[in-house]
């Protein structure tokens, strides 16, 4: 099922790349159209799964990634439409396609364990996924910032200079995306702790919920990194390139948590 949006995302990826290189407005519009079509198909897929299992499919790594990809695409589309800036698409789509490959090629059955009932769990997962989507956006914006920064410093205006947005705009976007992500991450973690405290203690996975569990540990580490970034931007003027690098490091940790740890290491979050 996740293959249909994947195909559309691949088409969008190709179109965004072409548009980035040649800057033909028609190609740009085609890119957006493919991406919107992909998002609609993806919404339909996630919607169908929701109807089928009667909750949003987020309780295993594969379906959580699928939902995460959808959120990322929606967040990107929102940014594109509010800034009329398509250059970022060429950077965000590779990530979208790479991540969407996982649920498309390796779907896991969506079963919700008894302990995962209740509204707290829903808030926990959805705010975390939204945080990760924001961080992905911030990371891509950060990469673009560094590329543009290097061209401006080197005084050599190559391929990227004319195609990428202004430094200050990128810096502001990065800070905004990071802040939104940090707020969601904080909510997600706090709700997670509250939920774990009141969950029935007889499930071995609930018993494994402590800071020693890699998934929880890395999530907290993530929170520390982003808290520092948000604090540093406001208090000590760590904007620009430093913020961009922090966004990249933070998102690398998010990905680490999302992929290898979710699949192999965690004992508490393998529902």
């Amino acid at each position, binding site marked *: 099922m996740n293959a249909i949006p994947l195909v559309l995302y691949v088409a969008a990826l190709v179109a965004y790349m072409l548009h980035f290189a040649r800057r033909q407005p028609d190609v740009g519009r085609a890119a957006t159209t493919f991406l919107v079509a992909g998002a609609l198909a993806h919404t339909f897929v996630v919607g169908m799964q929701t109807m089928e299992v009667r909750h949003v499919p987020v309780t295993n790594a594969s379906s959580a990634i699928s939902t995460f990809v959808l959120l990322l695409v929606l967040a990107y589309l929102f940014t594109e439409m509010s800034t009329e800036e398509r250059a970022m698409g060429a950077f965000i789509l590779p990530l979208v396609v790479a991540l969407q490959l996982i649920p498309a090629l390796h779907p896991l059955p969506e079963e919700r364990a008894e302990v995962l009932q209740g509204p707290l769990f829903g808030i926990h997962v959805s705010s975390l996924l939204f945080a990760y989507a924001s961080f992905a956006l911030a990371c891509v914006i950060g990469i673009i910032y560094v590329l543009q920064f290097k061209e401006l410093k080197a*005084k050599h*205006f190559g391929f990227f200079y004319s195609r990428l947005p202004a430094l200050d705009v990128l810096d502001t976007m990065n800070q905004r995306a990071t802040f939104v992500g940090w707020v969601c991450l904080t909510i997600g973690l706090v709700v997670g702790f509250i939920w774990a405290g009141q969950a029935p203690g007889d499930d071995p996975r609930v018993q494994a919920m402590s800071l020693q569990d890699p998934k929880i540990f890395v999530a907290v580490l993530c929170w520390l990194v982003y808290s520092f970034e948000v604090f540093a931007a406001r208090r*000590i003027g760590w904007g620009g390139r430093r913020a961009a690098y922090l966004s990249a490091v933070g998102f690398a940790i998010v990905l680490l948590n999302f992929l290898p740890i979710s699949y192999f290491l965690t004992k508490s979050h393998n529902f």
Partner: protein
Amino acid sequence: MHLLLVGISHRTAPVELRERLDFQARGIENALATLGDRHATSEAVIVSTCNRAELYAACEDVNAGRAAIADFISDYHGIERSAMLPHVYDVTDLEAARHLFRVAAGLDSLVVGEPQILGQVKDAHTAAASAHTAGTFLNRLFHASFAVGKRVRTETGLGAGAVSISFAAVSLSKKIFGDLKGRNVLVIGAGEMGKLTALHMKSQGVHQVTIVSRTIAHAARTAEAIGGASAAPWEELDTLLGAADIVITATGAATAILTKAHLAAVMHPRRNRPLFIIDIAMPRDVEAAAGDIEQVFLYNIDDLQATVRENLARRASEVSRAESIVNQEVEKFGQWLSSRGAIPTVVALRQRFESIRKAELERLASALPPDTRGRVDDITRLIVEKLLLTPTEQLKSVTDPETVGTYAEALTRLFNLDQKTPDTSTPRGATDDRRVEPFIRPGSR
């Protein structure tokens, strides 16, 4: 109807002649009215800039039109024909369209891809429209040229990149700050170059321009020349640097006035807000090592010149893409031109049908009761309309001039259209074989 262009440009005429042929001096409307009084052309638009003076006209007879326009130009400006004609070029129909499209695209400009020309072409058309000298033909042509200009601007890099020093400074600022509104510009030194660049920044809507100079009177004078700028004494330099986003240095000082250490101290309380320094002084005002500070972007005059050179080279490489857009649009315009070849036939056909209807109605009139006459008139008109609808649409949709000719001839014979409108059998339009020799063509000099 034919399209005719007669004109001079920087490619064919020296500046002395171009100056004398400037139509702007006495107003384009005035020139159009004078030309209109001569009844030599049925439509006319004058494109007059400092680099060209071109008359676009629609006329029935190209040779007569060409001579009439040349006479008009020479009489209007009081220039001997013999002094002017060697520099004048003329082209007709699709070649004239191609020429205008290239002009609007900036391909014929002195600085290839410069953006002002499209606005000037638009102004030329607006002037002709308000003087009622632009009709169906030239309206269509000029609107097509606006489309070419827009397409070339959005689809190619022909107009991309700044090609003058002060414009390069502005476009760099935009790549660092995005919008320049709300930004503070500080000019150090009261010289001419600094003033020019500051004026450019001012036109981009920056928040404040401050001039600082060792002699406050100089600073005040420059600030006044810029208009809306303020002058400040040298002692406030550090405070001003702290508040500035863009700094233009252009003093005549023999040694650097801003060192790396000095700037590092200024940058600290700014919390890494970017600072763009444009050093256009010679010798340089800012220590080169200052560019190593994280959020300091330091450009000197050579850097800016290098970007200008790079941009010019890049524009040159976009020319062929722009030319292919021009070709596509010329072809489109040619199709429209050809489809117009059918119009006289359509008109003649309708007139023939209408005259038959009228005649029959008149014959019947006495036999019909007065209250039904109106209805019969309506019904017959409807029948004729419906009968002619499909053939009219079919004729208009044909774009190939040869087919138009065949259709027109067949219809003329079948309905004997020659009787009323004798001149409908020859297709009009896309022939550009009517150039004559006294004038040269663009590019031949």
